[in-house]
């Protein structure tokens, strides 16, 4: 009964968690993998396990090394140091054509001189499968990506979304141990991208194949992946389920990269095991957060609060911790959400977001209104770096 309160993070309760099982063998293991281009270190001693059946996302800004990491797995780059193993087998020195992984390229890289069916059959023909088996597999793939009528089209006769599906079918057809997707939805327009994200996830579950996706789009990673690795300058910043990475970021970088966040620099005044109290000039009543990890009293820390966890009040709430006072500087109406930029007396702007759950509002918040912002202690995260 004395156990610390474990925060139940996120909305998804999934029983699929091979990474939590100490006996589970990873399908792919990156072990201290380093890659340099000239003087630049693109990937810096990265260690990472990906398990069979997992949908894993490498997420980060451009130039963070995520694509290089994937290309090393495909065999297009050789690591300068470290080891990559696939199903226990060391991949060092193995050329791309011998590796049982397939990649879906960002540009799709469809062969322009071949029809849709021939593109999909390309890897199968390379495996020297019998003709009727190839034809059957191509039909199966065309049905899977819903392109049955387009088997004889050339790539340039297809729309962007259709090309994307051909590229996907071509990479899946040879039944690789693992599918690598390099920014697979980057070239699609927003609506189609959203649809395809869910399709991709459903497809992966149906096939039971291990997917590794590289993306800079956090939404894409959050929707599709079982686990996300957030990368920064060639290193892993955090690995976790989407909800963990969002609700329990381990650093200001991750908190800021995934979604919007308000950060308060503060001094830790008390840690009673459950609740950490902090002092900040911006919050006269002090700050409070529920935190499992211990933070040394007297040290500087950052309190991170997501905009949607801020409550906006037009009337002053009772004084207490986690209470801020300010003036509405700007309002961004997005339809489903409204974002308020609230200027604190110190001059800093805080974001608060509210879902527009009903069409009519009694007292709408207006420009230049004086408002109070509050948040619950379990909505805030204490970050030490």
């Amino acid at each position, binding site marked *: 009964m004395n156990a610390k309160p474990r925060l139940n993070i996120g909305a998804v309760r999934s029983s699929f968690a091979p990474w939590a099982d100490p006996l589970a063998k990873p399908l792919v293991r990156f072990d201290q993998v380093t890659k340099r281009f000239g003087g630049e270190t693109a990937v810096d001693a990265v260690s990472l396990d990906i398990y069979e059946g997992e949908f894993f996302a490498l997420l980060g800004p451009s130039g963070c090394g995520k694509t290089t990491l994937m290309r090393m797995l*495909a*065999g*297009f780059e050789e690591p300068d140091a470290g080891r990559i193993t696939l199903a226990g087998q060391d991949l060092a020195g193995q*050329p*791309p*054509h011998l590796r049982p*992984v*397939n*990649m879906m*390229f960002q*540009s799709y*890289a*469809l*062969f*322009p*001189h071949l029809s849709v069916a021939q593109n999909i059959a*390309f*890897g199968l023909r*390379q*495996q020297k499968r019998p003709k009727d088996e190839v034809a059957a597999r191509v039909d199966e793939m065309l049905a899977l990506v819903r392109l049955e009528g387009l088997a004889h089209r050339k790539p*340039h006769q297809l729309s962007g979304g259709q090309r994307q599906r051909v590229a996907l079918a*071509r*990479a899946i057809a*040879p039944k690789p141990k693992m599918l690598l997707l390099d920014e697979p939805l980057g070239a699609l327009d927003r609506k189609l991208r959203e649809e395809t994200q869910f399709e991709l996830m459903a497809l992966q579950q149906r096939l039971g194949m291990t997917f590794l996706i590289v993306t800079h789009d956090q939404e894409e990673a959050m929707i599709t992946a079982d686990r996300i690795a957030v990368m920064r300058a060639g290193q892993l910043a955090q690995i976790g389920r989407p909800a963990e990475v969002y609700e329990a970021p381990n650093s200001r970088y991750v908190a800021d990269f995934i979604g919007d966040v308000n950060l308060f620099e503060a001094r830790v005044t008390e840690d009673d095991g459950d609740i950490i109290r902090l002092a900040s000039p911006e919050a006269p009543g002090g700050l409070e957060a529920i935190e499992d990890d211990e933070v040394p009293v007297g040290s500087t820390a950052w309190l991170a609060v997501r905009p949607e966890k801020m409550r906006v009040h037009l009337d002053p709430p009772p004084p207490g911790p986690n209470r801020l006072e300010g003036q509405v500087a700007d309002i961004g109406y997005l339809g489903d959400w409204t974002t308020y930029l609230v200027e604190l007396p110190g001059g800093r702007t805080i974001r608060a977001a509210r879902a527009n759950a009903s069409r009519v509002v009694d007292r709408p918040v207006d420009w230049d209104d004086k408002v109070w912002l509050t948040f619950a202690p379990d909505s805030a995260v204490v970050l030490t770096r």
Partner: protein
Amino acid sequence: MTATGAPRPRRPWRRLGRPRGNPSWEARAAFLPYLWLGLFFLAPFLLVAKLSLSDVVLAIPPYAPRLDWGAGLAGLAAFVQALDFEAYARMGQDGLYLAAYLSSLKFAAVATLILLLTGYPLAYGMARCRPSVRQALLMAVILPFWTSFLIRVYAWIAILKPAGLLNMALSQVGLPPVDILNTDTAVYIGLVYAYLPFMVLPLYAVLERQDDSLLEAAADLGCTPFQTFWRVTFPLSLPGVAAGALLCFIPMVGEFVIPDLLGGSGTLMLGKTIWTEFFSNRDWPAASAVAIVLLATLVIPIVLFQRQQTKLMEQR
């Protein structure tokens, strides 16, 4: 907004369009190539076609009939009646013409094949180089154009002649001399040398444009580098192969300077035949007939070439 009965607002960009009935400058400019073709291609062609239907006479100019402008319509009728296909008939009777004809096609075809076999690796190697090196190599291919064509062919005479550079080099390493000048071999050397840039440049253009991610995709799907070349690189370079082959084959069939300077008396090529008929035999109608037949045959590869080019443009 759907269309209603209300008048639609005047769209300002409408004014950018040309007013009706008044051809734009673009339309007028499109006439220029036709004018050019008419003046410098169609008119000379008609003259040659007319010449090929004339008869040889000992006069200046050495052909008949000549159109008497003063006689009006009757003169024109007499002129047309005097035209005949005698020159073509003579061509059919004399086996020499047919032999020259076939020999020209053979020279051009074999040289095109050699050009493909030498030009493809060259273009492929260039396209695989770093961009900075590529520019230098491209320059090296184009550089010979800065010297006169004739001088470059004469240089080959200096290399191939019995006491030329080639035989000097051979004797240096203790090999017997070869007698190449004034043989078909010398003509092939000259043709391949002169036309190599015309083969390399179109090939290089398609190979250089090729998307590297296609090669990676092929490797990813199980192709060795060799298989990648035959399943992806080569089929995608076929438009360049066709362009280069036609670009070389068409002018080589009618080539005159190279067989004349490097070939021997036994080298039969149509260009030489036309020259001989025209200048030695002063048989202008026969020379014209040979030229017309040559043109008629080359129309097929020329049309093929044009279609290939159009296809290439569409792919871009």
